[in-house]
């Protein structure tokens, strides 16, 4: 309100700012702070890579074993990307891919977590269920594609199934691992404090296995995208994987790279989403072990 009363405060603030500046002065004097140095190095490296790519494709670099003759330069890719952003097609492709990934992933999460908790808690269930699961596990989800097309009435369902298969095993195995690695002393303590069977499960087993489950979900999300894109390339009509493959068949080479980048971004975003949800649900969990 009063400019005269604010003056001393302002003076103090300036003094503090000066002190702060001089305090970190020596570090600036010797170059950059660690964070800034890392940022500058990362950005420079990215720019250099882009320039190298631009040069390789512009000059039709042919190394004999690998050729850049048909690789679109980054400038063309940027133009194609901009065009896709403005086209009404993009939304349709995104919707189709996201719907497939999330329905396959959610079913895998449900089945994987429930089955994992049951197997982790019961020796008998483990003895009965693990042998067939161990037989199916080494089969890559992508290898299921032909059979999936034959087994399901629509190509849509077969793609969701492939996504499900890809996400299931990381989620299942991490859940089993999480349950089996709970400190038995925690369970003993809960029982000595009056905890019954149900309480042991909800108060100790579930939260104890949660970090491992979230790890499984995060890995499963990655494999779900990987499997989906492959499945779309073979039997899709919409979707980012389909878009990428279709661009190849109609020789829109710049769009291939755009498709690749979109897939990468979506995969990254989905994994970040899973991790963020995990952190919100487990504020007590510190992966680095710091308070």
């Amino acid at each position, binding site marked *: 309100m009063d400019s005269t009363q604010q003056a001393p405060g302002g003076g103090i603030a300036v003094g503090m700012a000066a002190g702060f500046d001089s305090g970190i002065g020596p570090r600036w004097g010797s170059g950059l702070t660690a964070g800034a140095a890392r940022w500058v190095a990362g950005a420079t490296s990215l720019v250099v890579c882009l320039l190298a790519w631009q040069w390789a494709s512009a000059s039709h670099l042919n190394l004999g074993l690998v050729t850049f003759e048909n690789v679109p330069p980054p400038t063309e890719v940027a133009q194609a990307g901009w065009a896709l952003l403005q086209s009404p097609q993009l939304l349709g492709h995104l919707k189709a891919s996201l719907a497939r990934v999330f329905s396959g992933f959610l079913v895998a999460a449900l089945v994987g977590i429930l089955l994992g908790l049951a197997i982790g808690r019961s*020796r008998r269930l483990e003895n009965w269920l693990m042998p067939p699961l161990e037989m199916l596990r080494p089969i890559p989800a992508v290898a299921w594609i032909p059979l999936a097309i034959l087994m399901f009435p629509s190509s849509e369902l077969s793609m969701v199934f492939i996504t499900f298969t890809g996400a299931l095993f990381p989620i299942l195995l991490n859940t089993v691992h999480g349950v089996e690695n709970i*400190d*038995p*002393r*925690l*369970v*003993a*303590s*809960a*029982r*000595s*404090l*009056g*905890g*019954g069977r149900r*309480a042991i499960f909800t*108060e*100790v087993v579930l*939260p*104890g296995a*949660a970090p491992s489950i979230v790890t499984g979900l995060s890995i499963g999300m990655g494999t779900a995208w990987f499997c989906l894109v492959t499945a779309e390339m073979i039997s899709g009509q919409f979707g980012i994987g389909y878009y990428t493959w279709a661009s190849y068949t109609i020789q829109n080479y710049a769009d291939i790279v755009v498709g690749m980048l979109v897939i990468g971004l979506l995969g990254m975003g989905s994994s970040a989403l899973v991790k963020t949800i995990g952190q919100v649900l*487990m*504020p*007590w*969990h*510190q992966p680095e*072990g710091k*308070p």
Partner: protein
Amino acid sequence: MSVGQITIDKLHLRVGQGAQAFEAVQDVSLTVQPGEFVCLLGPSGCGKSTLLGALAGHLRPSRGAISVDGRAIDGPHAERGLVFQHHTLFPWRKVVDNVAFGLKMQGVPRAERRRRALELLALVGLESFAGHYPAQLSGGMKQRVEIARVLINHPRVMLMDEPFGALDAQTRLMMQQLLLDLWARIRTTIVFITHDIDEALFLADRVLVMSPRPGRIIEQIAVPFPRPRDASLVTSPEFTALKRRCLQLLHPANAELPLERLTPLGAPTMRHLQFAI
């Protein structure tokens, strides 16, 4: 105070599985009076933690019987609280919710159990850490929370397995004093395992000395020092005399090498034991 009487009759305990099984505790008979503070003193691996595990209900006797207030022990129960050497606080629960766990199991409403948990935290001097997670506390603080979590159930007996064994010397002395203060307020029978003679004599009404494996009680020593006790006690001549006697019992001329430590849940490798009982 008339609850918390422990009766052990010709107890034998076997731990381990198959060919590795061995007798950890042999023919132990013992009565602990209500409200008594008893220390079990013995060399590492002598079976004293195994005996404690049987009292808690995590291990079954192979022969003999144990009962508390005339009722045979047939599994863990909130009436017999157990404190481990290394804390077993739930990392996902804040300190106050860890302490309130026992009340939650009894179905006490949230506000009420929070109020009582804060009361107990105040008793152990940690009310200002109620909102912290266990990982944010020091080792000594974690053990104080662990003790508060057991005491909130008003157990008939509190079973403590070298609870201060992993703490530094300074913190250990502080915790011993704190435990005696707590015990003076919340009177309960305490069975306290230790291999530290000073600790046993400072805390206990009675010290039971155990032999190396298989564990048997070879001597009972009444500790006559008046309460409240303070740190100066450990330098008195009477204390030193009792300590000398304990040393002779624990380290006879033909002493063997120390054995692997056992736990209240059986042999250290038996990960799934508690699910079996």
